[in-house]
């Protein structure tokens, strides 16, 4: 399957992981300036992927890979088309800027090397996710992004809030990942196709499959948790506990878009059904509105951005699921625009935090003069976010309205949701970009001044990116938007929108949105109070629910533990032996393996006698009222067993048994003089009957099993081997002894070791009087 020349792509897929391995060493040598070196990795990857642009723009795709687990038909394979290529370019391009930014943001942090390692690992995982073709390849990378996200959110692990956020993100996205795995396996099972490229070729196969709805719900379970759709949105704002580069990269530009990527990837094969076009817009639209309303409530710059990210993800899901070709194109445009402006705004927020010491929007103002470049980057990004010309966000918004409005009630409702959501996002975006920089100067914890180049380069490049891609829209459409939209729609499409406004309904709706947005911006402080009051009234939220679920799980498990592990030996014994009886008895009956009825045994007189002696010994042990009787009776059954061995051709066994039984009786007599043997059976009658029943069933089952074993033909290969070779090879006539000291000599060595260790342990037990010196003097003599 692997064609020559694809090895370079494979290398690029593995490159970030190699970078993660060397990052700590580079930081040790170069300090935070290692960022310049490490940024070369994503830059090279970006360069590698630009090489695919022209062929993909011509409608070609690349599917390649290596055989991974041939016996299961699992390949490590990748698939490059417009969709995955755009994602790969975003991941590597923004990744390079983020690596630089991290160097500035975490300059002097003692664990900077570790941080670079994590972020490069994430980059590799995310890149693998969007390029993966085989389902299992996709799943492995999907989970890797969850794990690296966990590591990055919990980077500041000394704070409990960080740990909680990291665990929460891992649990929510991890559960989603399991759901995704189930969905992918179901699809694999139904269609027999285990890769995206194969699935995309067999277009109708999945939609008509019997369990289409189940597969859809399972896959969406993965996509919605990863992309923070309501009601799973709560982990994303909490993930803001991570250092800002992480928020900018994972939790706005890339990882949270994995769910959107998955939905877009499956749109051609799963879309165009009633379920698809209902579930996606409903969840996406709800997320959009809930996200913006919650964003209005926040005063922390990062949290404001986080909630608008939630709503943007909702908008993307809504657009992808809406069903019209133009809506899908709008989703593509908005996704590209969002990755740039939101990444930039997060980095701006981090820069403000870094230079002033606060991210609280009510405590910031007038720092624009001190931080002009950051201010410029913020404004560029906010204009794109607000959807004003001539920025890429404007193209996206025009396309959104062109795609959504179809004149019917349903499309009207969705359009209204989009207008309200966009207007509120406009307000929040400009609040973040303008409020801290303009107005009267407010005293901040640190004296504000422009940060180093590492801190403003990233946001400025991304902010300008939103402008340039829009101005050169024919070029960006040809190489980015068109191929990606074609992959999402499933057939070649042509996007024509440009920065020159066309008079029409979309423009009118855009103007409405902007007017509404400006109103909301002016009334933001009032809106914040209203939202805060509303949330107080509601009180409960999924975030609190998460704590309750975790607390409940801990309580349930500790209750279960207390029941299962009661700390009482007789419970454990009873459970063990009931399980033993069931495990042996039930299969014997189910599989008809009960022994045939045997003939009455024909034993010689003395054999009967020996058996009788054994039984008498056993009975006496059971009924012994005093210590001596019990010990002697135990000895009787032991000697009876020794006699039995003697009669059945095992003199060695017999001899050992005699010795061991004698020793046992002696030791027992020594020790038991101190122990109490209760004169009557202590158990109440009911318990006694139960114990007798359990013991009887166990005994009967074991006896029956043994009988059954002896009724099937005997394989004496091993015994014959020993008989043949004892003298020939090992020069011994007593075959049993030869086996013990020669053929299985190592076993005997182990046995001796056991005896020795037991002896040492006994010695230790007798000698050591832990913490009781008085006792030691008394008992030591």
């Amino acid at each position, binding site marked *: 399957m692997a064609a020559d020349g694809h090895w370079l792509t494979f290398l690029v897929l593995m490159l970030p992981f190699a970078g993660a391995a060397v990052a700590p060493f580079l930081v040790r040598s170069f300090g935070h300036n290692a960022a310049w070196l490490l940024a070369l990795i994503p830059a090279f990857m970006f360069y590698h992927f630009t090489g695919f642009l022209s062929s993909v723009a011509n409608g070609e795709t690349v599917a390649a890979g290596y055989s991974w687990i041939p016996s299961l038909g699992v390949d490590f394979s990748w698939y490059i088309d417009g969709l995955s290529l755009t994602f790969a370019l975003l991941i590597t391009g923004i990744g390079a800027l983020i690596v630089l930014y991290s160097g500035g943001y975490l300059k002097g942090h003692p664990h900077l090397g570790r941080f670079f390692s994590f972020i490069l690992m994430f980059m590799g995982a995310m890149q693998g996710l969007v390029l993966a073709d085989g389902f299992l390849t996709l799943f492995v990378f999907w989970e890797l992004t969850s794990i690296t996200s966990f590591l990055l959110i919990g980077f500041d692990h000394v704070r409990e809030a960080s740990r909680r956020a990291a665990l929460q993100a891992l649990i929510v996205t991890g559960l989603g990942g399991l759901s995704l795995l189930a969905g992918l396996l179901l699809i694999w099972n139904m269609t027999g196709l285990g890769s995206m490229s194969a699935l995309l070729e067999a277009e109708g196969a999945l939609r008509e499959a019997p369990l289409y709805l189940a597969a859809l719900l399972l896959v969406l379970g993965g996509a919605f948790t990863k992309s923070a759709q309501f009601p799973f949105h709560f982990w994303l704002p909490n993930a803001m506990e991570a250092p800002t580069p992480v928020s900018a990269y994972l939790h706005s530009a890339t990882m949270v878009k994995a769910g959107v990527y998955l939905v877009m990837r499956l749109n051609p094969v799963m879309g165009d059904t009633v379920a698809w076009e209902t579930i996606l817009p409903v969840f996406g639209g709800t997320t959009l509105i809930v996200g913006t309303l919650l964003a209005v409530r926040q005063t922390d710059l990062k949290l404001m951005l986080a909630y608008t990210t939630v709503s943007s993800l909702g908008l993307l899901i809504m657009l992808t699921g809406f069903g019209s070709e133009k809506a899908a194109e709008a989703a593509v445009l908005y996704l590209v625009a969002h990755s740039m402006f939101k990444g930039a705004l997060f980095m701006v927020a981090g820069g403000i935090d870094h230079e002033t010491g606060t991210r609280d929007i009510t405590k910031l103002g007038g720092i624009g003069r001190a931080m002009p470049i950051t201010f410029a980057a913020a404004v560029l990004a906010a204009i794109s976010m607000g959807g004003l010309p001539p920025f890429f966000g404007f193209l996206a918004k025009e396309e959104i309205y062109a795609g959504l409005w179809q004149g019917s009630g349903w499309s009207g409702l969705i359009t209204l949701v989009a207008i309200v959501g966009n207007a509120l996002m406009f307000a929040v975006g400009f609040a973040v970009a303008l409020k801290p920089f303009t107005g009267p100067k407010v005293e901040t914890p640190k004296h504000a001044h422009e940060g180093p180049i590492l801190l403003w380069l990233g946001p400025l490049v991304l902010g300008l990116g939103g402008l340039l891609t829009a101005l050169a829209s024919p070029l960006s459409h040809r190489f980015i938007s068109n191929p990606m939209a074609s992959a999402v729609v499933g057939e070649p499409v042509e996007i024509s929108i440009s920065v020159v406004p066309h008079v029409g309904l979309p423009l009118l709706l855009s103007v409405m949105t902007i007017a509404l947005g400006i109103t909301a911006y002016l009334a933001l402080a009032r809106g914040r109070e209203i939202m805060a009051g509303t949330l107080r009234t509601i009180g409960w939220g999924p975030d609190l629910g998460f704590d309750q679920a975790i607390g409940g799980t801990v309580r349930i498990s500790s209750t279960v533990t207390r029941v299962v592990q009661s700390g009482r030996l007789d419970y454990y014994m009873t459970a063990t032996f009931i399980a033993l009886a069931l495990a042996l008895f039930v299969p014997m009956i189910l599989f008809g393996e009960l022994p045939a009825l045997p003939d009455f045994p024909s034993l010689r007189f003395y054999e009967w006698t020996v058996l009788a002696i054994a039984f008498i010994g056993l009975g006496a042990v059971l009924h012994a009222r005093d210590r001596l009787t019990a010990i002697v009776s135990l000895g009787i059954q032991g000697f009876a067993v020794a006699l039995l061995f003697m009669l059945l051709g*095992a003199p060695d066994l017999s001899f050992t048994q005699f010795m061991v039984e004698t020793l046992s009786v002696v030791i027992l007599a020594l020790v038991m003089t101190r122990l109490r043997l209760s004169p009557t059976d202590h158990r109440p009658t009911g318990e006694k009957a139960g*114990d007798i029943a359990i013991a009887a069933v166990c005994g009967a089952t074991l006896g029956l099993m043994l009988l059954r074993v002896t009724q099937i033909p005997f394989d004496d290969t091993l015994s014959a081997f020993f008989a043949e070779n004892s003298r020939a090879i090992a020069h011994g006539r007593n075959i049993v002894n030869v086996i013990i000291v020669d053929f299985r000599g190592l076993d005997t060595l182990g046995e001796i070791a056991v005896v020795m260790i037991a002896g040492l342990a006994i010695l230790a037990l007798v000698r050591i009087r832990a913490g009781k010196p008085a006792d030691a003097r008394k008992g030591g003599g």
Partner: protein
Amino acid sequence: METALSATVGIFFAVAIYLMLSKHIIRILLGVAIFGNAVNLTIFTAGRVMREVPPIIPEALIAPDAATANPLPQALILTAIVISFSFFAFLLVLAFRAYQELGSDDTDTMRVAEPESEDLPPLGY
């Protein structure tokens, strides 16, 4: 012969298990001792039995010329007897020391390792 031995093994196991289900440590120990014999007899019987012919090669021969008792289970049991004896001796001393330290031979009251009431694990993160 195997039939009779199977029945014997069943009875040995039943008695041993009944004793081990008790709450008094000394009875449990007696049960363990009998359990060891029951297991040895099981291995012995499963290897089939033959009367009075120990697996010994006559002086003049290189291999036994007639059927003998099966040597393999005998070798296994020989190891098992010794190990079960050391195990039994260890248990015995352990029980005795536990009785000395705790002043009880009732397993219900010997709860040092798993105390009666335990607090909930911490609910933080």
